[in-house]
């Protein structure tokens, strides 16, 4: 059997491995290869790569899936997973051919990588686990994965599908076409299910809950031939969705957005219809966020109401909600932007506030906005309000001197609709006069003390003390005495 080596950025040169997953017996103690596919965003968020001997997993897996080795260190499934169902900390391995092709398992599924490697005799340099230093995938490993995918697609013969059940339901799974009395083994996410859940070859799950979602596989007796596999998704039917429509860009159009009040735990699809009179309008889905679409107005000033119906459907049921409104009622601009508040020089009670129209409002000249300004000092709870019919600035003239203020602005179309939310709050403090510096007395006091380091004043000399509080006349006498003493000290030095 030919082999090819692969230099992997994580682990360096990998040992020889078979380059096709054929129907031949393993050549050595472990038939396998290194699964060192680094995780990328398609498979999960973690850039870890894992290695292990896939010979432990001689079970046929799903189309497009990778056989995932049973590492406890990985969250998620232990059997093959497909596409976006791979959990974020999942990882992938490489599939091996079915044992019926002549390849026998060497080591059964193990609880942790260490046992796996110990039993298998993995060389030290290739033991499983580890973080990748370089997230760049190895090209040859990726190519190998592609080969595996093709192989899996061509050779998978088993049914595999997704089964949706309600929380609390009783679920019975049949092992494909196996008779009721056939000897089978069921696994859930790679872990054997004990016989207490079996009724013959049927798997019975009573009162299922969310934790029982996962991959269920049924293997025939001792041959360990995979006979049936399904992915059970436990969830609930959708509740009535919450729908909101708003025009923040009048007169261009409006958007509707929605969400479910509680999760269903299974995939949902949403369908929205917009009717205006007898006309059905197109609601173009936004790329982001996904739960939003927008409609362009074809008419303005219409008295005919818009009727928007949102239907949410999943495998367990459907629900819908309808909104009816007229053109003017849903107009609500976005908050004003770039709010700035500045003190006014030499004015201790003024603050200058300016802002801009929201950038989403398409034509403020033709559809001008009016504004509502509110402000208060931080130390008080009561807001002051000012409504401004035009302009994007205002001077507050009754601010408390020296107090920090919080200021916000809201916007509304001059004639229709409702007020926007409040803008981001800005803080400002009115101008205050700078305190005067104290200079003369302090300097002289310091001079006196430094120049008399080698001079002891006569005991009768009065040393001035500002805290003495003896009055201005006595202070003048002290200054004179101080100067004399300083001069005396200089002479002696």
């Amino acid at each position, binding site marked *: 059997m030919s082999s090819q080596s692969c230099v992997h950025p994580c682990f360096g040169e990998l040992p020889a491995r078979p380059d096709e997953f054929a129907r031949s017996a393993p050549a050595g103690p472990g038939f396998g290869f290194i699964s060192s596919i680094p995780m990328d965003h398609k498979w999960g968020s973690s850039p870890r790569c894992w290695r292990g001997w896939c010979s432990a997993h001689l079970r046929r897996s799903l189309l497009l899936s990778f056989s995932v080795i049973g590492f406890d260190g990985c969250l998620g499934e232990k059997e093959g997973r497909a596409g976006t169902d791979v959990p974020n900390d999942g990882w992938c391995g490489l599939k091996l051919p079915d044992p019926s092709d002549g390849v026998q398992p060497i080591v059964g599924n193990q609880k942790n990588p260490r046992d796996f490697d110990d039993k298998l005799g993995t060389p030290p340099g290739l033991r499983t686990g580890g973080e990748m230093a370089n997230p760049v995938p190895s090209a040859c490993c990726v190519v190998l994965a592609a080969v595996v995918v093709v192989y899996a697609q061509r050779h998978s013969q088993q049914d595999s599908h997704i089964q949706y059940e309600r929380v609390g339901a009783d679920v019975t799974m049949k092992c494909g076409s196996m008779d009721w009395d056939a000897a089978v083994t069921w696994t859930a996410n790679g872990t054997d299910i004990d016989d207490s859940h079996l009724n013959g070859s049927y798997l019975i799950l009573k009162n299922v809950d969310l934790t029982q979602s996962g991959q269920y596989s049924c293997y025939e007796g001792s041959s360990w031939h995979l006979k049936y596999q399904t992915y059970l998704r436990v969830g609930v039917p959708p509740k009535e969705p919450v729908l909101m429509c708003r025009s923040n860009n009048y*007169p261009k159009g409006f958007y509707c957005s929605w969400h479910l009040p509680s999760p269903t735990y299974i995939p949902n699809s949403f369908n929205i219809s917009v009717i205006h009179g007898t006309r059905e309008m197109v609601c173009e889905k936004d790329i982001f966020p996904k739960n939003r679409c927008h409609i362009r107005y074809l008419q303005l*000033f219409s008295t*005919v109401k818009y009727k928007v119906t949102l239907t949410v459907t999943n495998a367990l049921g459907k629900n819908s909600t309808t909104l009816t409104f007229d053109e003017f009622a849903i107009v609500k601009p976005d908050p004003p932007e770039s709010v700035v508040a500045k003190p006014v020089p030499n004015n201790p009670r003024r603050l200058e506030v300016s802002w801009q129209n929201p950038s989403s409002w398409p*034509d403020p000249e*033709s559809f*001008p906005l009016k504004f509502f300004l509110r402000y208060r000092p931080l130390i008080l709870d009561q807001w002051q309000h000012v409504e401004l019919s035009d302009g994007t600035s205002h001077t507050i003239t009754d601010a408390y001197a020296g107090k920090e203020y919080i200021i916000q602005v809201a916007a509304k179309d*001059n*004639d229709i609709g409702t007020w926007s939310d409040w803008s981001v709050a800005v803080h400002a403090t009115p101008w205050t006069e700078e305190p005067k510096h104290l200079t003369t007395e302090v300097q002289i006091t310091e001079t006196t003390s430094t120049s008399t380091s080698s001079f002891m004043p006569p005991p009768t000399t009065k040393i001035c003390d500002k805290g003495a509080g003896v009055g201005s006349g006595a202070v003048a006498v002290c200054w004179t005495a101080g100067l004399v003493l300083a001069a005396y000290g200089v002479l002696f030095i």
Partner: protein
Amino acid sequence: MAAADTPSATLRHHDLCSRGIRLARKMRSDVTDLLDIYVERQGLDASISVAAVDGVPTAAVERWAEQTGTQRLLDNLAAYRAFRTLLAQMLEEQRELLGDTDAELGPALAAMLLQVSAFVYHLEELLELESRGAPAEEGSEPPAPPRLSLFEQKLRGLRVLRELAQWAVRSVRDLRQLSKHGPGSGAALGLPESQ
């Protein structure tokens, strides 16, 4: 056209537009109150849907942004002349029905009729300034409506007031567009993307 371009004409144009906007806003505010009174006095459900009625001008318009100034004025004038006739009919019907016992609806209708008449005059002035001249009224009057049942009269009245409320908003927008340009331009006043 030369007269429309003089500074005094521009000032007058701007003044007429500003006053027209204030008039339209007042009309809208008053017709909103009048609608509440009307619905209550006529025993109607405020949410009732009324189909378009012949002779009642519809405010809804496609491609509003692409209209020329002159077109806006002409559309407004035709609409408010029709509203003037319709409100007069409604007032007459109310008086026939309730006589002098109606202390609320009748006076409110009369006040609204007065405002609409004033607005018509205003629009005619603007058109004169545009040197277009207002079209003759005889040609714009709707034909006499067929005799309606009492309930049909009520529904038509509801439609009239609702459309008048929409027209008042539209007129504010139209006059603002007009005021952005001087008199006599008649230019299309469009938004960056057509509405």
